[in-house]
């Protein structure tokens, strides 16, 4: 089947809805943020020094900005 030219350059990526989250990171509805466990303490993920958690970039490979933002949902 004929595909648009740009699809020649398409690369596989992982989008947010398809990401398996690291289970050490949980959303805490009390504080309204994602937290993680460091030893015996729970710290906001954004203040954690641990890697391998959720990242601020939306996706894996694309690190992009210009996708999924075109409307509130689509």
């Amino acid at each position, binding site marked *: 089947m004929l595909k648009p030219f740009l699809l020649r350059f398409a690369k*596989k990526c992982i989008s947010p809805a398809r990401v398996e989250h690291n289970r050490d990171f949980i959303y805490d509805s009390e504080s309204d943020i*994602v937290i993680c466990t460091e030893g015996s303490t729970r710290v906001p*993920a954004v203040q954690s020094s641990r890697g391998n958690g959720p990242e601020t970039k939306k996706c894996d490979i694309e*690190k992009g900005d210009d996708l999924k*933002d*075109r409307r509130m949902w689509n």
Partner: protein
Amino acid sequence: MILILSNKWDLSVDFVICELRKRKQPYLRLNTEDLPSEIASVTFPNFQILVTKGREKYDLTKCINVIWNRRPGKPYDDVPKSDRPSQAIKHFVDDQWYSWLESLQLIKDVTWINHPHANDSMESKIRQLKLATEIGFMIPETLITNDPNSVRARLEDHRDGLVVKALYSPLIEETAQDYFIFTNQIKKITSDTDKEIRISPSIFQQPILPKTDYRVTVIRNKVFSVKILHKDGSSIKNDWRTIKDNIQFVPCELPKDVEDLCIKYISQSKLLFGAIDFAERNGDFIFLEINPNGEWGWLQKPYGLPIAECLCDLMIYYDNLR
């Protein structure tokens, strides 16, 4: 109060929430993928937009002054793939919620960061480029077409080839796998590709080489700039987003005239927030594109740019105006 529309896993929002809490500023974070487990209603004739969050109930028509339209989640985002309905049903449900959320635009005197119409409008790359030239930015020589012969003619003019990228969102969502189309460079096209080029228009641009990439985050009249380099300090030849490691973002200042144009651009776009990409060559800043709802969290933490703080300043300012 400040209303934040996003999803649970949006860590950039967490930076802002931490700051709002530090400042004891009231806010409501709605992770919109969770709305099906809450109660959300719109009532007439007494127009009200009502939503619960846990045990709390909010009349958004009365309590909201600012809406940060960040990254609203979709209802099935957190549902395991095996439990999701068909794509058609998923779209149906998404659309119903989209319509409900759209009612927020009817609340009077709310400041949106950014208003969905402005975001939507400025996702148009053609509009972006046109505005850029109108206000005085340099842009790459650009052809947007589905005509292979025009592309061929341009290729003859440019020894280095042409940059090719998507005219609209470069994400392709298939059932099992998503794909992304980065910016690429082509040196020639063959007759085999003519039919493919005709299917949909693409952007073909003069490559800016050598160049240094800049990401400029603008929050109303505040500008945060970083230079994007390899870790050894050398500039990046291709699309920097394709490089996962060996990359650094170096905070820097823009020339005053470029900074002023960035602020003007955001203002004329009716945005309060935007992330602009430039390629710099020999001191010239060449506008590539703007991401009206661009990501910034990765600049906040390791590079210390106070973007969350600045966003809080802006939201609190507008919240206090009413």
